């Protein structure tokens, strides 16, 4: 017997199919919207997670006061500028490193806890997911550094709105770079146990060799090459020059604390440094989106 009880219904219910709710187009507005949806989730998650918020707000304070005071007692900056002042831009940059990197590898968690699937089957592009993760992570990391930024006065840096805005811009770029790096890692590494140490292995040398904690002048030749290959150098250097630019430094101090970065003898302007980071970041996000398309 092969009679289908539904077939009789079928003729009576052949109404037109209802149009699906929602609008999905294939243009930039839609991609931007989808990206923002994913970004907003990152922000929501951060807001929801009190413990994470607290630890991330306290950690940079630790950096500036412990390291600034501790190291400051043995380091002589050779002038009026205190070591804390010198250190501050570096600590600012350092403070976003791990937050941003971890935000990036949270993609591994999303995969492990299944939520990634929810995004993967939605009518949005994979690039939107990647961009959303990166922007969300970068915004969270930058937001966290604002607490530290509020304390510039304590290390003798003036509360100049323009300066602060410029610093926030640099921090956002640096955060975006690191989140992208984390996201890129997560497209290949599928376990959090694998992703964490890998991220630390990448971030730690970047942190030390970016000039965040000591001036880059006077390093042995090979190390100086490494610092110039380190994208973070081009985040820390502009921030430091912004800060020191607001203080009256002698040429000697300037030379000591902020030795110019050169590429084959050419003194790299701050704008070009930031542009370099921007280009690398866009490249990383693009690469991550590409890997993501082929591996998921």
């Amino acid at each position, binding site marked *: *017997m*092969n*009679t*289908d*009880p*539904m*077939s009789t*219904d*079928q003729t009576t*219910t*052949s*109404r*037109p*199919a*209802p*149009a*699906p*709710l*929602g*609008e*999905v187009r*294939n243009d930039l507005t*839609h991609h931007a*919207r*989808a990206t923002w*949806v994913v970004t*907003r*989730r990152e922000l*929501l*998650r951060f807001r*929801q*997670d009190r413990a994470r918020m607290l630890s991330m707000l306290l950690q940079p304070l630790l950096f500036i006061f412990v390291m600034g005071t501790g190291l400051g007692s043995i380091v002589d900056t050779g002038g009026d500028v205190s070591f804390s002042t010198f250190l501050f831009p570096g600590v600012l940059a350092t403070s976003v490193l791990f937050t941003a990197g971890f935000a990036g590898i949270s993609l591994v968690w999303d995969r492990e*806890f*299944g*939520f*990634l*699937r*929810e*995004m*993967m*089957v*939605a*009518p*949005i592009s994979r690039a939107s997911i990647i961009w959303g993760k990166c922007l969300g992570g970068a915004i969270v990391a930058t937001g966290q550094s604002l607490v530290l930024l509020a304390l510039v006065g304590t290390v003798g840096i003036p509360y100049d709105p323009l300066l602060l805005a410029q610093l926030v811009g640099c921090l956002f770029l640096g955060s975006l770079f690191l989140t992208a790096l984390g996201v890129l890692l997560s497209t290949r590494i599928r376990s959090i146990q694998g992703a964490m140490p890998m991220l630390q292995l990448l971030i730690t040398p970047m942190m030390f060799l970016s000039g965040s904690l000591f001036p880059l002048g006077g390093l042995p030749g090979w190390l100086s090459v490494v610092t110039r290959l380190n994208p973070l150098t081009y985040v820390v250097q502009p921030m430091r020059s912004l800060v020191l630019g607001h203080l009256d430094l002698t040429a000697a101090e300037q030379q000591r604390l902020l030795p110019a970065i050169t590429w084959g003898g050419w003194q790299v302007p701050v704008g070009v440094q930031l542009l370099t980071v921007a280009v690398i970041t866009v490249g990383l996000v693009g690469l991550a989106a590409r890997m993501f398309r082929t591996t*998921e």
Partner: protein
Amino acid sequence: MSNTVREPAIEVVGLTKSYPSGDTVVEAVRGIDLRVEAGQTYGFLGPNGAGKSTTIEMLCTIRNPTSGSARVAGFDVVRERTEVRRRIGLVFQQQTLDQQLTARQNLRFHADLYGLSRADADRRIDEVLEMVALTDRRDDPVLRFSGGMKRRLEIARGLVHAPQVLFLDEPTIGLDPQTRAAIWDYLRDLRQRTEITVFVTTHYMDEAEHCDRIAIMDHGQVVVEDTPEALKSSVGTDRIALRTDDDELAIARIQERLGLAAGVHEGQVTLAVPEGAHVVPRLFTSLDLHIRSVTVTRPSLDDVFLTYTGRTIRDSEGPRAAAGKAPTR
């Protein structure tokens, strides 16, 4: 697009999927044809490793087929992926909720991903929460939900964008019997209220009874496809058991007037017939004696499954843990 004549909700022709595994090529799906009419609840059964998940993933545009074609809600799953995605809702075997967010935030995120307007989203979110009875828990983080509540929320989420086809991959796995029953109640309710097509895989044979049609898949192929009733009839006969005032006479009259052989088993007059339901009325009219009770036992879907796959569904459930880790991504 919205005023075309209703096409089948799912139409699959010669679909295959193979992927390399070490030196060999695994043929997970070996050419299947399916046709699911709009508005049906369609059960997709099979032992683990039969290729069910791979098939569902191809229908949901998560994987591309190696060959063959599939249309879902009238669109091609490869060439018109986005159009398919807008029209389907998915509930996976694994949890896919963001545990840190509240029920409503999860639904809101979904509505946003699918491009719903603010007003549509608000209305739909309220509706689906109501439907799965989670309205009063909407602002709790999902982390605090029980397994059954999470499942209900996932079903609700799959419905937020008013899909034409809802795919459910093992929606009741790991849930207690009450919750399983409740989930099927929601699904039945859903079908009565909307014209949604439901495509469901399950390991529970009793649940397959809720389906309008069933396909059983084994070794990458559909081995049989029909209504649950027809499938059960195809594998065996019904057993009718009677309690009468005079068993001897009953047996004689069944023999004489209906031409059927009957005997006494466990104190009841018992006979085996292909379509029990058709014979019962004739028993009443032709036996001419007092019948105290009648039971008709139909072959179960477990019998069907066993017949077509050579295994019971319990046997096939054995390597579940291992199968869960198989490359399903």
